[in-house]
């Protein structure tokens, strides 16, 4: 674009107005539309449930806000699990009341077990599945506790609760699908494009790889959450029927290939940083020479149109074939292994980028023309790992909170004690699945207190003063609904908006008839806030999850992976190993209190584990292919296994010696074992480098 100086002022004004408008359209308009959608859905839910004279219209309104999401696929997905969770909770309530209404001790015992199970499952599972379990847990509180004195009313409250949730869900899904629907697949396309361009930029930039500063603040969480997040969105897009299966397969495939590429690239970066410190300049130069042609190809592509893509892919294909043949000439013999391993990673980056770019091109073509250029049949399996200690801790906390609040209710004999129980159980379940639970509870409390004031304003001033029927009621609550809708679009406000929504809808008097009085209002508010405090206290007390424990657990799991791979079936997918690692790191960094420094460490551990594990698998596959009985290689594998089972210095030395002698003896043999040599030298380089391997050391937590 021309600089604005040389343009007539009216023209530049027009352009700036146009730019501003476009920016508004991209950034702010979606928020406004979302607010409008959330408000309309909630109003619709109110009208429907009041017309049907359901017992508690507030549950329906509340449901719309809980399941409302900017994209339709997310709404469907969350609604689906909310329905399942509600059904499970309602059935459980009927069973519990039927079986133990006369037996308080057994009732409390099984209640605590149920809450423990659902809390554990909520932590164990991902995405909205976890939300389903959360709901199955607290529905029991909402349905069973109020009728504990009159057990026969259980059917009444169970059916009305279910109908209200259904009305809310139907309103939310219909509104989000009909009014300005936003598809997950569209946002996936744009995020995929952004990701591809980022990869392109960082691979084409040589200085990002060579001579890079030791960045302490590497965005570790981003490294894992990117892949895990895209996977989550792709999973939820199952619920958008228009996103056909082929599309989803492509996205999963792209995600997997990106994951491989990013692992290789980060490993290469780590190793090069180490080589720059340890090895001679000639090695670094040789590596640079090896990488430069690849970067040049990327730099020569100006734009991503059809021709540019075809050109790039052709050039890369040529390059891929020629990279193998380059052999270093003037290298010191003891640096040969180092060079060899880094060179191997360079060729892998080129190969994997080629594959990734190919799939991306195919995906773009599919999106634009509907033509399939590359048929995908393989379903990628994305594995997750949740630490059992984390799960057990969550279950303990959930049941503990329930028992303490139960005791509070029984000892005080307070009529509204059930509200305290419900609130604390809700928080124990819901917040347990969010990152940084303690902060979230604090924000929840803030939101709840603000909601109490707003609800009081409505209950005692606005509703009695200004409303006469359901239409005027709808009119006066629009501002609150819009505000809540706005809050839910801000990720920073998650805890606050949850607290606000929960308390506002439990304290407001948007019922069929006006029935609130100041005493009840005060008592129920205090009961709810007490529940929040109990749950918050539980998060402070039951949290002996420390940095060193987290590191120990991660190291153990990662080492276990390496040991497992020494004997694993050969057809194991690389993707399942990598996704498992990333998912675990993601889990630990959100739940397990990893500070900045240790998450950097854990990130290095993950990379080295993936590399060593990958190398082991490739060695074994090569041995299998060559059908060669190679005793030395087998011995080395055994040494690796032993070292990672019990990491001691002595075993490490044994392993290094074994690697050394095996590589030496393979060098004199025939050419076919060159692949095995590269893998062995990779393991050796990693073990010798400063990059840490998953072995916990006491001082790394200070």
């Amino acid at each position, binding site marked *: 674009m021309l600089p604005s100086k040389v343009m007539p002022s009216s023209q530049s004004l027009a352009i700036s107005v146009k730019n501003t408008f476009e920016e508004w359209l991209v950034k702010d308009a979606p928020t406004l539309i979302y607010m409008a959608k959330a408000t309309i859905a909630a109003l619709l839910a109110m009208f429907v449930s009041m017309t049907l004279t359901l017992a508690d219209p507030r549950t329906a309104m509340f449901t719309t806000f809980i399941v409302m999401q900017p994209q*339709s696929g997310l709404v469907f997905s969350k609604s689906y699990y909310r329905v399942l969770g509600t059904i499970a909770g309602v059935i459980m309530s009927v069973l519990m009341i039927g079986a133990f209404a006369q037996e308080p001790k057994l009732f409390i015992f099984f209640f605590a077990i149920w809450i423990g199970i659902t809390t554990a499952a909520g932590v164990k599972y991902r995405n909205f599945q976890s939300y389903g379990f959360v709901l199955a847990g607290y529905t029991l509180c909402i349905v069973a506790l109020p009728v504990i004195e009159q057990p026969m009313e259980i059917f009444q409250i169970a059916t009305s609760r279910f109908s209200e949730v259904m009305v809310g869900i139907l309103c939310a899904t219909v509104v989000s*699908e*009909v009014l300005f*629907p936003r598809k997950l697949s569209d946002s996936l396309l744009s995020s995929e494009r952004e990701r591809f361009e980022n990869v392109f930029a960082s691979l084409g930039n040589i200085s990002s790889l060579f001579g890079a500063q030791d960045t302490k603040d590497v965005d570790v969480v981003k490294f894992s959450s990117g892949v895990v997040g895209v996977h989550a969105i792709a999973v939820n897009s199952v619920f958008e*029927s*228009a996103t*056909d299966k082929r599309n989803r397969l492509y996205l999963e495939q792209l995600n997997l290939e990106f994951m491989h590429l990013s692992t290789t690239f980060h490993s290469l970066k780590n190793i090069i940083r180490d080589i720059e410190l340890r090895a001679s300049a000639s090695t670094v130069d040789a590596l640079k020479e090896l990488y430069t042609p690849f970067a040049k190809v990327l730099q020569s592509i100006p734009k991503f149109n059809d021709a540019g893509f075809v050109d790039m892919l052709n050039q890369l294909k040529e390059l891929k074939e020629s990279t193998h043949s380059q052999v270093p000439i003037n290298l010191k013999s003891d640096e040969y292994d180092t060079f060899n391993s880094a060179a191997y990673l360079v060729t892998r980056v080129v190969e994997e980028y080629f594959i990734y770019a190919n799939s991306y091109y195919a995906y773009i073509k599919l999106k634009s023309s*509907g033509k399939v250029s590359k048929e995908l049949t393989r379903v990628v399996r994305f594995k997750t790992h949740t630490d059992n200690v984390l799960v057990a801790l969550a279950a303990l906390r959930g049941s503990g909170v329930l028992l303490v609040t139960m005791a509070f209710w029984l000892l005080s004999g307070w009529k509204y004690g059930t509200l305290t129980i419900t609130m604390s159980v809700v928080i124990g379940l819901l917040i347990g699945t969010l990152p940084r639970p303690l902060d979230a509870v604090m924000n929840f409390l803030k939101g709840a207190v603000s909601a109490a004031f707003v609800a009081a304003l409505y209950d005692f001033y606005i509703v009695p003063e200004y409303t006469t029927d359901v239409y005027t009621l709808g009119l006066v609550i629009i501002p609150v609904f819009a505000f809540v809708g706005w809050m839910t679009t801000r990720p920073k406000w998650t805890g606050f908006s949850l607290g606000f929504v929960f308390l506002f809808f439990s304290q407001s008097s948007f019922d069929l008839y006006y029935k609130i009085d100041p005493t009840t209002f005060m008592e129920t508010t205090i009961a709810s806030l007490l529940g929040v405090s109990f749950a918050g206290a539980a998060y402070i007390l039951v949290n002996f999850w420390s940095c060193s424990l987290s590191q120990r657990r991660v190291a153990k799991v990662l080492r276990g992976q390496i040991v497992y791979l020494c004997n694993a079936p050969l057809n194991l997918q690389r993707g399942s190993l990598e996704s498992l690692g990333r998912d675990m790191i993601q889990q630990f960094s959100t739940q397990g209190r990893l500070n900045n420094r240790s998450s950097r460490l854990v990130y290095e551990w993950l990379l080295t584990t993936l590399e060593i594990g990958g190398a082991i698998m490739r060695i074994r596959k090569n041995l299998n292919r060559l059908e060669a009985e190679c005793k030395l290689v087998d011995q080395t594998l055994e040494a690796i296994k032993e070292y990672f089972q019990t990491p001691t210095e002595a075993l490490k030395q044994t392993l290094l010696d074994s690697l050394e002698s095996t590589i030496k003896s393979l060098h004199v043999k025939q050419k076919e074992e060159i692949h095995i040599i590269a893998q062995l030298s990779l393991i050796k380089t990693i073990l010798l480098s400063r990059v840490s391997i998953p072995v916990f050391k006491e001082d790394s937590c200070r």
Partner: protein
Amino acid sequence: MPLDITLYGIQMPTLLPIFVIVAILQVTVDSIIAETGLYRHVWHPGLFKVALFVCFFTLPCLYIYH
């Protein structure tokens, strides 16, 4: 057709089982349409789906309440 029916000793409005059946029908039809790529030719797939559901649900309702 009666307004209420009794299933396994539980009395419920006839609309409820109809709703469940229609929901299953809707999911089936929806997946067929998505598979054949018909949604590409529909201006507003969301609205189309809702309209389809309303049609499916209203037909038996009209029969019950006529």
